[in-house]
């Protein structure tokens, strides 16, 4: 490994080491996130000095670089280990997914506490939000590479490999194998488009008819919100601006969602085709794929597809010989921030800033990337668009329902026999989906991830479509054996961790909700605490700035409504319980005074 050792990090010689790293990274890609990534990789942290050097080299305010470093989870101001291990903490691919605390197990074997770097600098270990491996059971990232289907035996081997300082290349190759697990194929997954077929069809149609085809298809955004794709494109096309941009949101961060991982891996041509179709329709010359940092391992593949497409004349100047149709795509890789899946936060991140959702209106279609008209669409949406121009809007409309045309690709995980990718016509019932994936004794399903809806078995005849149960694609199954309160607590931690901190109700509210739920789940909650939850969820939901805050309370709201018993059975029948552990709060004093008598404790 070419890492700079920690010992050097604070000596005068470091500037000499930092500058070439910055210069080289900047030459490859001037994007702030990419330069910081290079530094994090090679120096294992981003020191204050590195922040200053980056600011100088990129001609940015020091505070902006500092702000970005502290915003994204994958950047660190304190050195990480040469092996940096991050366990997913998702209910489906998290370190508890197999019923054993794998993170604690690895921690024991490596002599390290979660969240820390070991004294010798060899290894650091921590947890991170869902890494999109939910169909593979417990998973982790080691130096950004996913290892899936973890079990206790693998953990022991990982510990040994780390201690032996074995290079990642020499770890068992099979561990890094991430399968697509496509179980049911429909409209889009049946076959990938042959590169260029969509574009040729589009050129034959012309921009105006391409746009009409998308509008007439009834295609709605696949990210979950379901805005008409054609309308979005049309607004962008009509908006005045020096340039128009096409952005693909591949920041698939909703826990339980992994369909984009599969689409990026096996349907990248269709995706880039769809982006080019959009560019043609709205008059854009530049596109960006914003790839979540957790999927960085897909970057070489995606770049190779882009190179090939340029060679084929499907990207670049005068695409397919069409004079004036020039379009290319750059990839920007995120660095661990769920909020960047919100389109305006994503744009901020594209611009090299913290991912703070913008005030809307104005919307990105008129004021997006660099203030210019911008279309931001989901991976699946672009792929659907590519198919639609080739096969026609009627072909698309023939599937699904009146208001929700076409198909939906689902990421199914949790307590079922066959987790994986399922593509269904819109309108399919939850019951059908559960039957197909082998979920025998489901008590509840989380539709659309933590920000979506938690439903119980009485509602399994409800349908997946924009009118009834909209979903970005995540579907997590919870069997009768599942502790639903633990699930809800997990989600509350997720939102508190991922809140960007911009607005008061979400910044403070998500923490209060998390703390309140921890208290209840820990057996210290009273009816008072439950009533407080009720009051807070309403405030956070209705008064927050963006979709994150507005949905962060959903799991608790749904839980209180549909599964009140999971909260109530945990309550203590007392008037009030303290908000902190009184006896634990005396521990410092006991140690300092060397006392352990009865008066040194409190019930």
């Amino acid at each position, binding site marked *: 490994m070419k890492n700079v050792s920690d010992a050097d990090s604070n000596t005068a010689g470091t500037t000499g080491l930092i500058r070439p790293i910055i210069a080289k990274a900047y030459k490859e890609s001037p994007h702030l996130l990419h330069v910081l990534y290079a530094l994090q990789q090679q120096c294992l942290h981003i020191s*204050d000095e590195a922040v*200053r050097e980056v600011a100088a080299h990129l001609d940015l*305010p*020091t*505070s*902006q670089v*500092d*702000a970005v*470093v*502290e*915003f*994204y989870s994958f950047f660190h101001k304190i050195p990480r280990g040469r092996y940096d291990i991050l366990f997913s903490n998702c209910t489906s691919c998290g370190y508890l997914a197999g019923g054993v605390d794998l993170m604690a197990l690895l921690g024991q074997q490596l002599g390290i506490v979660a969240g820390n770097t070991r004294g010798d600098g060899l290894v650091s270990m921590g947890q991170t939000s869902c890494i999109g491996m939910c169909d593979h059971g417990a998973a982790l990232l080691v130096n950004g590479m996913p290892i899936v289907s973890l079990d206790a035996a693998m953990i022991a081997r990982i510990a040994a490999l780390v201690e032996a300082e074995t290079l990642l290349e020499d770890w068992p190759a099979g561990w890094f194998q991430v399968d697509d697990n496509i179980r049911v194929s429909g409209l889009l997954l049946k076959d990938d488009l042959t590169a260029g077929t969509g574009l040729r069809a589009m050129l034959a149609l012309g921009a105006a008819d391409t746009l009409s085809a998308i509008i007439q298809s009834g295609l709605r955004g696949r990210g979950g919100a379901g805005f008409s794709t054609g309308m979005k494109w049309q607004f962008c096309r009509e908006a005045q601006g020096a340039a128009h941009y096409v952005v693909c949101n591949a920041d698939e961060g909703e826990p339980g969602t992994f369909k984009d991982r599969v689409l990026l891996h096996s349907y990248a041509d269709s995706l880039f085709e769809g982006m080019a179709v959009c560019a043609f329709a709205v008059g854009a010359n530049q596109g960006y794929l914003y790839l979540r940092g957790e999927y960085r391992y897909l970057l070489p593949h995606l770049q190779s597809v882009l190179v090939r497409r340029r060679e084929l004349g499907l990207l670049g100047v005068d695409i397919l010989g069409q004079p004036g149709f020039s379009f290319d795509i750059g990839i920007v890789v995120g660095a661990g*921030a769920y909020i960047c899946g919100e389109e305006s936060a994503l744009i901020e991140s594209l611009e090299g800033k*913290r991912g703070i959702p913008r*005030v809307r*209106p104005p919307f990105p279609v008129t004021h997006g990337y660099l203030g210019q008209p911008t279309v931001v669409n989901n991976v699946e949406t672009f792929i659907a668009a590519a198919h639609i121009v080739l096969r026609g809007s009627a072909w698309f409309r023939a599937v699904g329902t009146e208001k929700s045309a076409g198909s939906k690709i689902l990421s199914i995980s949790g307590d079922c026999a066959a987790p994986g990718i399922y593509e269904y016509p819109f309108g399919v019932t939850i019951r059908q989906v559960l039957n197909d994936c082998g979920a025998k004794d489901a008590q509840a399903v989380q539709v659309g991830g933590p920000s979506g809806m938690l439903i119980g078995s009485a509602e399994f005849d409800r349908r997946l479509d924009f009118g009834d149960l909209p979903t970005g694609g995540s579907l997590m199954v919870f069997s009768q054996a599942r502790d639903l309160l633990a699930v809800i607590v997990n989600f509350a931690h997720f939102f*508190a*961790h*991922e*809140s*960007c*901190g*911009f*607005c*008061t*109700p979400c*910044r*403070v*509210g*998500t*923490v*209060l909700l998390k*703390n309140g739920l921890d208290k209840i789940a820990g057996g210290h909650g009273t009816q008072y605490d439950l009533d407080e939850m009720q*009051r*807070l969820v309403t*405030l956070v939901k*209705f*008064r*927050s*700035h963006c979709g994150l805050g507005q949905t962060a309370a959903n799991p608790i709201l749904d839980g209180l409504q549909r599964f009140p018993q999971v909260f109530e059975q945990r309550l203590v029948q007392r008037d009030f319980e303290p*908000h*902190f552990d009184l006896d634990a709060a005396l521990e410092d004093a006991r140690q300092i005074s060397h006392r352990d008598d009865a008066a040194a404790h409190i019930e």
Partner: protein
Amino acid sequence: MSADTKQNPITQNTITIDGQEIPFLAGQTIMDAALAAGVYIPHLCHRQGLTPHGSCKLCVVDIASRSASACTMPAVAGQQISNNTPALNEARKTITQMLFIEGNHICPSCEKCGDCTLQAMAYHLGMLGGHFPQFFQRREVDASHPTIMLDRDRCILCELCVRASREVDGKDVFAIAGRGINAHLVVNSVRGKLVDSDLETSDMAAHICPVGAILIKEHGYEVPIGQRTFDLHQVSEVGLEKTILTKVRQPDE
């Protein structure tokens, strides 16, 4: 929205706040229109003349049944807006309590006491206490600057200083770093210290802080407690901000 501006110039565009019809000009937000008409909508992160921010959420109003921030929401003809209602003021009180418990607001020991907009807001909303468990976060104090003090304990992340520095002072002294509950004010200078920044006492950014996070040194308690802005005024008096800013920016500074 462009249709509104093209309406017959004789019929003036109006919005309705709590039943009161209020005129507005194209491009105005609900807050702009309300303040121009002398109607108070509670706010902490808003200041006329600076880019609206919409982060504190004190200015939440209901338009029909949808929540919106009055400071960022464009006024649109015919909007029916609820503002001064018990439910909204209750929500605002809770939001104010959140601001109190996430920071370390020890009013009795704060020089800003009596001139503090957060405190005045809490009075306005009838807040008796923080209600929630205190977070007791540890935040850094920066006393490095010879004439200006930065106490992050009191910062409410309203970004008024960030915007004032950029938009009025033509500098870029402040920014917010970190995420979620760890968000905090940072100084744009080599070591991150105020003394190394180009902040000056005459800057608007040095005076705009609504709480006691940014204070001018050596001018403490020149105005005695009891005679301070909010000892004499209500936060809801429209136009008060101009008075405050004129008052605190003494000619000798």
